[in-house]
């Protein structure tokens, strides 16, 4: 057996080149699994860490960007306002891969507005919601994704219906919507790779149990419930651009391919039911059914690889804007003389 430590990826980096600082989150926290899968996805895809920028809001989830990609730029912003921060920064160098990490409090409450407007603009970035139905950092209050009837210590019983983040994304015309479960790391990783290849806002709503405040086995955001009720839409495999694969081994109708903007592909293998993630109506239907039947539907719920992104409307220069030499930033003297003349 080879020593994994010495293994390198396509650009000669080891896994530890993608690691961050030691996590200070609770042992067993779903967020740590997700951080690990971000590391693995970026490593396996061979993305240079300096070509990735990390953003987050406030909360346990938003602390996690320090725990992965220690050699990438990062900015831990304000509660619910990671989208605007990431959007402004993204314009400085549109060749960067942007990863945003948020939580259910950060996205579904204070940040709902920015979340929906980010989606509407379709800024190319991966938007991860580490969704555990509870406020962890402030010690166990209900979040807006907590299910009706959830009983929490000190909080009583939640009387309200939850906000479904994937549904919000869909009706907000998101170009990429996925749901996953921290208890299924392989699926998380494949979805992350697809999201990193998508040219638009890729929403990943990942159920990520909070072992300290909301992991009772009969509750919707717990490990046990997730394992018992997970209903994957398909087996998902990400295929990078340069790999050609032979699809003959699958029978017709068993797989669905989606070519992403950069030429890479996701292969979705049919499970019990055929599912077409390019059909928005079907996507809404499956989420509705899942809610009625207590399924934790996971997988690539919806994707439109060709929806125009924010950059497509901006007619931007090719080079990174933050490297434009100063001489190109100030119009010539004659132009001001002309303006003065016109205003005289």
């Amino acid at each position, binding site marked *: 057996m080879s020593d994994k430590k010495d293994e390198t990826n396509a650009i000669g980096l080891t896994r530890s080149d993608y690691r961050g600082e030691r996590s200070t989150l609770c042992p067993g926290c779903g967020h740590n699994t997700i951080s690990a899968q971000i590391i693995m996805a970026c490593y396996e895809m061979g993305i*240079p*860490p*300096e070509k990735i*920028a990390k*953003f987050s809001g406030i909360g346990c989830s938003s602390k996690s*960007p*320090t725990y992965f990609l*220690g*050699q*990438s*730029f*990062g*900015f*831990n*912003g*304000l509660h619910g*306002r990671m*989208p*605007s*921060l*990431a*959007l*402004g*920064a*993204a*314009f*400085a*160098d549109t*060749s*960067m891969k942007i990863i945003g990490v948020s939580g259910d409090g950060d996205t579904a409450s204070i940040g709902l*507005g*920015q979340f929906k*407007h980010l989606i509407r603009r379709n800024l190319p970035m991966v938007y991860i919601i580490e969704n555990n139905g509870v406020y962890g950092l402030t010690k166990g209050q209900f979040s807006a994704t907590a299910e009706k009837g959830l009983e929490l210590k000190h909080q009583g019983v939640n009387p309200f219906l939850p906000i479904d983040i994937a549904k919000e994304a869909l009706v907000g015309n998101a170009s990429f919507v996925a749901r996953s479960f921290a208890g299924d790391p392989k699926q998380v990783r494949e979805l992350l790779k697809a999201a990193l290849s998508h040219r638009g806002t890729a929403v990943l709503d990942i159920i990520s149990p909070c072992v300290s405040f909301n992991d009772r086995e009969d509750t919707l955001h717990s490990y046990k419930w997730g394992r018992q009720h997970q209903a994957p839409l398909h087996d998902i495999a990400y295929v990078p651009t340069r790999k050609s694969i032979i699809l003959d081994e699958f029978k017709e109708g068993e797989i669905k391919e989606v070519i992403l903007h950069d030429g890479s592909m996701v292969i979705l293998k049919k499970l019990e039911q055929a599912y077409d993630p390019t059909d928005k109506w079907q996507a809404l239907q499956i989420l509705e059914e899942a809610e009625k039947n207590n399924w934790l539907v996971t997988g690539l719920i919806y994707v439109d690889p060709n929806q125009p992104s924010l950059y497509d409307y*901006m*007619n*931007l*220069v*090719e080079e*990174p*804007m*933050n*490297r*434009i030499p*100063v001489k*190109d*930033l*100030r*119009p010539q*003297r004659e*132009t*001001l003389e002309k*303006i*003065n003349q016109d*205003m*005289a």
Partner: protein
Amino acid sequence: MIKEMDKEDLLERRQEVQVNDFCMTVCTVNGSGSATANNTLLRALFHMGIPVSGKNIFPSNIKGLPTWFSIRASKDGYLGRVAHDDIIVQMNPGTFVKDLTYDVQGGVVFYGDHIKLPIDRDDIIAYPMPVKDLVKQAGVPRNLQDYMENMVYVGVVAQMLGIGLGYIEDALCSQFRKKTSVAESNFAIVQLAAEWAQNNLEKKDRYWVEPMPPLEDYIMTDGNTAGALGAIYGGFQFCAWYPITPASSLAESMVTFAPRLRKNPDTKKNNFAIVQAEDELAAIGMAVGAGWAGLRAMSSTSGPGISLMAEYMSMAYYAEVPLVLWDVQRVGPSTGLPTRTAQGDLTLNYFLGHGDTQHIILIPSSVNECFEFGWKAFDLAEKFQTPIIILSDLDLGMNLWMTKKFDYPDQPIQRGKVLWEKDLEEFPVEWGRYLDVDGDGIPYRTLMGNTHKKAPYFTRGTGHDEFGNYSEDPDIWQRMLDRIKMKIESSKETLPKPVVRALPGANIGLIAMGSTEHALIEAQDKLNAVGITTDFMRVRALPFSSEVQKFIEAHQQNYVLELNRDGQLHQLLVLHYCDMTDRLTSLSYIDGLPMTAEWIIKAVFAKEENSNV
């Protein structure tokens, strides 16, 4: 007693003929399209070489409520507001009676003869104008009739005051640049109306205009346009904004001008981005992100937007992110008077944010200065790695002013302490984002996309050490915050210095800021004429430079004049110079209208009279 003195000594002495010196107010309803007509009159006077200013007093409404446009012509060059009218042009029956009360003795009213209301003053001269008949006579299409009625008063007023029709035609052409046929059809009505006035009205009033030497060094525009152009020449690269009166036209001017001025000449691609955000919370978040990543970033808003931006501004201060934020002030608190002017956001902005936050503020007083501060602010923001707030106001931002031509920036763009790959390679010590290498409190920064191994760092609003690492260490917290304070304090002498207008023998100081300058200069001259000699200092930046202290020290009595209830500039001066509070007296008020020289004179008079008792 004071009132008597006002009448005798302070109000302008009326003579038989009053040339190039009057205030004319056009009263219409908003949405009637009078802006073109008013601006035509304004520009015609300007083209005649007569110093002139225009103020639009408008409601928070789109159609149907009263609106007033005051044009002040002043051979002496005074551009501030006056509270009375010499000439009223009345198109609105709804305000007819009340508006007449503002007319001076011997003043004039031109009114549409469809207004069938009695004129209950026998000390003014009234000229009816058959606006509806003339428009019908000219065969104006029905859908344009209301709009064209405004051109009737342009023609009548031009004829009666002696504004040559050539000036009117030029002014129309400059407004309808490429639409010559529209300019022509408007001018036809003007001509018709002027001809009617010539044949039917007998001149009984004293107001006349005459050409003066051309105002060659001057242009006419508004502060928001100037601020936008300033940003464009300052190399702005990212602007995020959310619509709000009276700031919207700043970002909108950028949308107009930036694509013309800031395309790569070869590729025709934009080297900037402008995003209309979903709210001010997002607008400032975007600006912080862009500023952090190395773009010259900005936003523009007004008071309510500033309130929403407080949290990110606090973070930008502590995380040391450069950006430029315009506050075009309107009247608060609350929604307040959204279409009226004020200087009420000074303390809000100075301390904007939670914890110990204190921002650098620039305060332009003229349209020209909006341009200048517009570009300078980016250099300052990047030099000091902190937000720079520019405090404008509705009067300055939205009204048309004659102003000095824009000067091309006299110094190259300075991007502050930024390290790219090569710079990091050669950096003498181990680089840390918040490490004060030079002892000036200003650290070096790297920008997202820098591929050097040592370049990436993690930015956070939480406690951090010199290398950007999370820290709750008491010593580190104190050290970092003290360094930031030192950095901000050190900006004082780099910021625009106060401007002092000194008069020989003055022992009283007048202190003000921003757009009230014009009223202050007029008041200073007129006070001097009646024996109250003052020096006038206009503060242009906070934190205050040493000149501010020296000015206060040099005057036993300093009056601080401003457009807000609580005297916020006075509050800050008292806070900074607590050993000289006895030399500082607040004279402030807020009613939504620009400050007048008359108010200043009265206020200073009252204080001086009391102190002499």
